[in-house]
């Protein structure tokens, strides 16, 4: 019996990737329980101290203002405090599905959050939209450029091949 290199290569290449167990929770649990988060960010401790001191200074200044205001009575005004809405809660303006891939665009004013599942390469028109944030999940937040009008395309590609696209309107 003789087996050619091509026969063998074909056999090897025909073995598909199989689904993996989900390690995320198990590994994150082990990291949290072992106290590693502190170790991982140890070299940022000086920066954290500076940020902490800046916060403390800001709190002292704010308290000073508050005390001054309290000592001189003024007419009361009631103002609502606005917490920023998380990106994933922005209303979806478009969502397209491919073979296992989803491209969703959420909008908040001039900001557009582009989500792809699974994470893939995202392309957009830089003349109309500028990137201001990438989340670890792969969500990219784009901001409409001043003067940009009409609409713009967003494309999703894997290994250089376009798999999904959608159009967002600036209206």
């Amino acid at each position, binding site marked *: *019996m*003789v*087996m*050619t*290199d091509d*026969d*063998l*290569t074909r*056999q*090897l*290449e025909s*073995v*598909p*990737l*199989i*689904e*993996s*167990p*989900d*390690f*995320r929770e*198990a*590994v*994150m649990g*082990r*990291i*949290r329980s072992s106290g*590693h*988060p502190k*170790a*991982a*960010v*140890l*070299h*940022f401790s000086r920066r954290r101290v500076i940020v902490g001191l800046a916060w403390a200074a800001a709190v002292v200044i704010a308290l000073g203002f508050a005390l001054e205001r309290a000592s001189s009575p003024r007419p009361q005004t009631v103002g609502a405090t606005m917490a920023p809405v998380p990106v994933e809660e922005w209303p979806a303006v478009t969502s397209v599905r491919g073979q296992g891939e989803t491209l969703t665009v959420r909008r908040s004013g001039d900001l557009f959050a582009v989500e792809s599942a*699974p*994470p*893939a*390469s*995202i*392309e*957009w*028109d*830089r*003349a109309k939209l500028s*990137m201001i944030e*990438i*989340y*670890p*999940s*792969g969500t*990219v937040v784009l901001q409409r450029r001043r003067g940009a009008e009409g609409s713009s*395309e967003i494309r999703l590609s894997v290994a250089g*091949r*376009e798999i999904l696209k959608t159009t967002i309107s600036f209206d």
Partner: protein
Amino acid sequence: MSYSNFSSSDLYLVKEDELDRVAVERCLEGDLDAFGSLIERYQRPVFNTVLHMVGDAEDAREVCQQAFMKAFEHLSSYDRDRKFFSWIYRVAVNESINFLKARKPHESLNEKLEHPRANPAEHFEELEQWTHLHEAIMKLDPNYKAVVILRHFIHLSYREVADILNLPEKTVKSRLFTARQMLREALEARGHGHD
């Protein structure tokens, strides 16, 4: 595919590499969820690599977890000029090799890896072929096994395999050639091939 309304200078592309870079930076700043997203992105190919290296699903699960833990612990020493995926594969392959060294020889072939898609009733021949292939792979030296798995199962380029294993491309090609020769001989001895 038409890009007629985009000039190339107007295109901005966020690649997986960039997502990895951002996730690593976030993680080093203390955002643990960022590391979770890296696990999510790479757990499937890493698990498949380790599974074929160690040959047992339970062992692979443990080795994978260990590899991700190690990656987290050493994240600050990861060279960010290199691709994250090369680095995580390297950690996983090294963990697998360490595991194989520590494992007693008699344990290695007791539990066979099941072919992921073969149904024994309908595809007996395919299953038998796969079992023999798997046994032959398991008998390879881990250094040869790693090139076969990364190149043929994970479908990485020679350059990527070389980067992961920290070897010259030429060495990867010669190891792969030798590994395939050994696999062919083993399978021919089991009756596979043409007359």
